[in-house]
């Protein structure tokens, strides 16, 4: 079992993480990977993610441990950006390696739901008239409730 959890302040290339992660698990059945990027929304010039150093990384590590225990994983990779990002830059990468595909896919789904709405990140968007904080969404709560 390998758990890789990283918070990055600079742009990253998902392939540089997924390749070595996959190769580190010979004999696996499947790897599911999700990469979230800064979406091209009308009027959004940039996105900033604020984190709280001493809680954010620890929370991600605990989430990874929970996912590993819940799904039968061979390995889990979680990489998250912080700071200011432009449209098209990767924000988050989750990759799960497992013997069977359903476990890998479900672990990624689980980890993404929790990273998005149950991790210590605060986001704001830059528009023509300045920065705007992004509030929690109702959809996030219903997504999370699926795993209760």
């Amino acid at each position, binding site marked *: 079992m390998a758990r890789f959890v990283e918070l990055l302040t600079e742009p990253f290339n998902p392939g540089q993480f997924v390749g070595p992660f996959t190769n580190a698990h010979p004999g696996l059945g499947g790897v599911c990977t999700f990469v979230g990027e800064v979406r091209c929304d009308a009027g959004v010039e940039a996105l900033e993610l604020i984190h*709280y150093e001493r*809680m954010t990384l620890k929370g991600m590590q605990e989430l990874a441990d929970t996912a590993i225990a819940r799904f039968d994983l061979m390995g889990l990779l979680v990489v998250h950006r912080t700071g200011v990002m432009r449209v098209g830059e990767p924000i988050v990468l989750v990759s799960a390696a497992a013997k069977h595909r359903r476990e890998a896919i479900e672990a990624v789904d689980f980890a993404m739901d929790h990273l*998005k709405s149950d991790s210590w990140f*605060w986001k704001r968007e830059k528009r023509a008239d300045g920065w705007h904080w992004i*509030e929690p*969404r109702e959809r*996030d709560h219903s997504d999370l409730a699926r795993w209760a």
Partner: protein
Amino acid sequence: MPITVVFLGKLADLAGTPEKEVEAPLDWEGLLDELQGPLGDAAMADRTRVAVNGELLADKTALSAQDGDEVALLPPVSGG
């Protein structure tokens, strides 16, 4: 050593600073005394959590911070 109060997300905007130092000891009433107007309202909101040295308080009104502690005010995290 003073106590450091950290403001996360939009609370830093309301505070006009990402953190400030206050005298120890600090309880919940003492913290609210330090927070003016909308910032105090935001701190009292149900969904705003408080952590001491990185550990969430189950009940923020039980805050009891000492010399050198870091108290964080955490508004609801942003959606996906």
